[in-house]
């Protein structure tokens, strides 16, 4: 389960809209399954079909989250034209079995969360709080 404030959900979707036509991405940080902070990040693939985080920026966000007492709970990315579910590439590149994979569809404004473990996609309950 992951709990995300509606304002952060809206910020993710706005990030996705602002980055069109490319995919937007970033980390969500918090504790006890609750997201408190969102970190929009650079898609170094600069692509409408792919995304990769910049490792240097990943470490900077890890440290920023840590100084606030938060952990990296989720990675988010947007699908500009497809539904909010993991693609084959998302699954193949999901090496971290503990983090949540939040996917936002810019087309439908749907946002969903998953765990991906050993190639298996496990839908995760996403609670959006007002």
């Amino acid at each position, binding site marked *: 389960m992951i709990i995300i404030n509606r304002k952060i959900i809206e910020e993710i979707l706005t990030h996705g809209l602002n980055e069109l036509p490319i*995919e937007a*991405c970033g980390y969500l940080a918090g504790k006890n399954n609750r997201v408190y902070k969102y970190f929009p990040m650079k898609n170094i*693939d600069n*692509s*409408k*079909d*792919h*995304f*990769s*985080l910049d*490792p*240097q920026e*990943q*470490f900077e966000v*890890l*440290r920023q989250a*840590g100084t606030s007492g938060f952990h*990296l709970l989720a*990675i988010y*990315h947007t*699908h*500009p*034209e*497809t539904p909010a579910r*993991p*693609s*084959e*590439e*998302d699954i193949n*590149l*999901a*090496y*971290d*079995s503990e*983090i949540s*994979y939040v996917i936002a569809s810019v087309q439908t404004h749907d946002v969903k969360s998953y765990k991906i473990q050993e190639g298996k996609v496990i839908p995760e309950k996403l609670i959006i709080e007002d």
Partner: protein
Amino acid sequence: MKLLINGKTEPLKQTCISVSELLQVKNVEHPEAVSVQVNKEFVSRTDFDSTLLNDNDEVDFLYFMGGGTY
């Protein structure tokens, strides 16, 4: 020895440990997909075996994060 791992101080029973060995201790499932910084400096994957950690070193590791639409 003590290490600061991803921002958290952790005691280890080992007195000497390499980056590769630490990733094993931390049950990292895909070390080939992990980026590591020791004291804020990147360690090349080819140096994971030979890079030995010192007491109170700051070690951060993160999985590659990427994906796609299809």
